[in-house]
């Protein structure tokens, strides 16, 4: 697991990120870091700024201020392409899938494979190669619930759609995966499958950031918990040796006793 020594730079580090929507200060000077092979849970009440932070990292919604470091080097993320190029993949809360396209087309959207040889000049999409590697990818993630990769995504269940979205994020061989509320809309067994998938990602050495409202899920998958409250980083916990009550207190801002593994930030 990730033994983050203070000297070794984390995989991805954010310093003093701020973002305002008009008068609404969604993020105020938030620091954030995730290491390779680590699952960080980003928790907080509705409107705490979790999605805004993730969107800033993903390059879909730029922050007003803040510095980004990738493997210790300062980087600029000003578009989704920038984030992708760095190896940051995002699974959005609204999944961002095209219901009218099949599983293969969604997996490869924006990076379709072309056939080689003379037909390359005709911009022919290589459906065969895409379908083959889609099947391999789903197999490697042990996704067994998607039986037909030529089915339109609109016909799939919530868990299947989530699996497609996660698999899609992995196609570019990213080193960081951001998941916004991956289990929010799912039933019990589908949630299990997604948590299983997150474990697989960590085993592969990826840095994983999971936003979740569900503390049970957070405790099941996360190594560290970062709490946002009213746009500020309110607390950071190591899951080993912290109680659910402590996390809830940090989320709601209630007074609480100093528990094990707690490090309250001065916000």
């Amino acid at each position, binding site marked *: 697991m990730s033994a983050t020594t203070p000297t070794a730079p984390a995989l991805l580090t954010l310093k003093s990120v701020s973002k305002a929507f008009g008068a609404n200060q969604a993020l105020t000077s938030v620091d954030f870091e995730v290491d390779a092979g680590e699952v960080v849970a980003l928790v907080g009440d509705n409107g705490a700024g979790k999605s805004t932070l993730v969107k800033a990292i993903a390059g879909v919604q730029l922050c007003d201020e803040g510095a980004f470091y990738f493997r210790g080097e300062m980087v600029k993320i000003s578009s989704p392409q920038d984030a992708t190029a760095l190896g940051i993949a995002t699974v959005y809360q609204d999944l961002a899938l095209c219901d009218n396209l099949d599983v293969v087309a969604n997996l490869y959207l924006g990076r379709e494979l072309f056939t080689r040889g003379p037909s390359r000049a005709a911009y022919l*999409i290589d459906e065969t190669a895409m379908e083959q590697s889609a099947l391999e990818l789903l*197999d490697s993630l042990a996704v067994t619930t998607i039986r037909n990769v030529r089915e339109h995504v609109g016909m799939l269940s*919530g868990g299947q759609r989530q699996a497609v979205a996660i698999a899609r994020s992995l196609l570019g061989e990213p080193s960081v995966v951001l998941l916004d509320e991956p289990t929010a809309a799912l039933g019990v067994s589908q949630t299990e499958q997604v948590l299983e998938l997150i474990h697989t990602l960590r085993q592969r050495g990826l840095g994983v950031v999971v936003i979740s409202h569900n503390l049970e899920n957070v405790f099941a998958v996360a190594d560290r918990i970062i709490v946002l409250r009213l746009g500020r980083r309110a607390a950071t916990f190591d899951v080993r040796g912290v109680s659910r009550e402590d996390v809830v207190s940090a989320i709601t801002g209630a007074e609480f006793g100093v528990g094990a593994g707690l490090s309250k930030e001065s916000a």
Partner: protein
Amino acid sequence: MSDDRETPLRTNGPIQMVRDVGRKLSQGEAGPLLVLLMVAAIWTFFQFQNDRFLSPGNLTNLMLQQAAVATISIGVVLILLLGEIDLSVGAVSGLCASVMAVLIVNRGVQPVLAVVIALGLGAIIGLFNGFMITRFRIPSFVVTLAGSLAWVGLQLYVLGQTGTINLGDNFVTALTNTFFPPLIGWAVAVLAIALTLGFALLGRAHRRAAGLQVGALRGLIFRIAVIGAAFVALVFVMNQDRGLPLVVVIVFALALAFAYLTERTRFGRHMFAVGGNAEAARRAGIKIDHVRIMVFMLGSTLAAAGGVLAASRLLAVNQSSGASDLLLMAIAGPVIAGTSLFGGRGTVWSALLGAVVIGSIANGMNLLALASSVKFIVTGAVLITAVTIESVTRGRRNSGAIE
């Protein structure tokens, strides 16, 4: 590899096949089949009313009449796939045809060059539409509705005092007045069938070699047989009259090219993505505004091409070229034949099928010498029925996602 995954083509005997068709029908995805049934019903009805309806002469006329509409409709399909609308295709077709006619007749420009200029004008108008829609975020129906007024005005200005320009005998009029001798017609049909079958078998072999599941050969043969029978019947009937019209081949070639663009290329895939979920497309790194602008350019260019074909058929251009119910027919056709008004679903072939359906109704009602009032009401009723069916089945399709 994964044996538990089935391809959609896999069927377990006739019962399963019937069940699949039923499921597709109820989900509004059996487009071509449903439309063919609709055509059969319409043709049977009009044949009973007037036995000249299915005569080779009338069917050939139907093809010639609908070539322009079908061409415009191909462009409309592209725009509908994005979830947008272009209400100026009728006006653009009239304006571009008028410019072409003025260039040929009044300015002595080479007909081929005049056609190229007309198409270029269409592309520029489409660029303007796309620019207004993407840059200023004006809904496409507003931009194109306002545009259509302006283009009609420009058409009247271009045509000037006389109002009508006769094209005479040239490249343009030859487009819809050229017919192939019977043997060439048959050769075209055989070639078309051979290519369809060849590509289907090639694709199948390719999938099999890659270790992917392939559908039952029976299904493929059935499809090719239906397509082949349609080609043979078409050429047979056309040969009874003047022969296979050049313009039918042109429209088919256009449809084939745009079917390829939409279904086999990256650009086409991105069109479907923008129409299905523009935000998802944007996050996938697709430059959605580029796609929109390109598609509006293609739509207007095809409208201009349709205008050229309409002028060719009429042997002239006048003040009402592109006016009347042309716009309605060009949009209604693909929608009746299964292209969604809500974006992301449809095929280029629906432009051709839709043109046949709408054209059959109009042609049949003309043969029965019905009043314009009746014709408008019937066409409107057919359109609203088709849209309602689409809307209802769309709801059912989406609810399929809930477990």
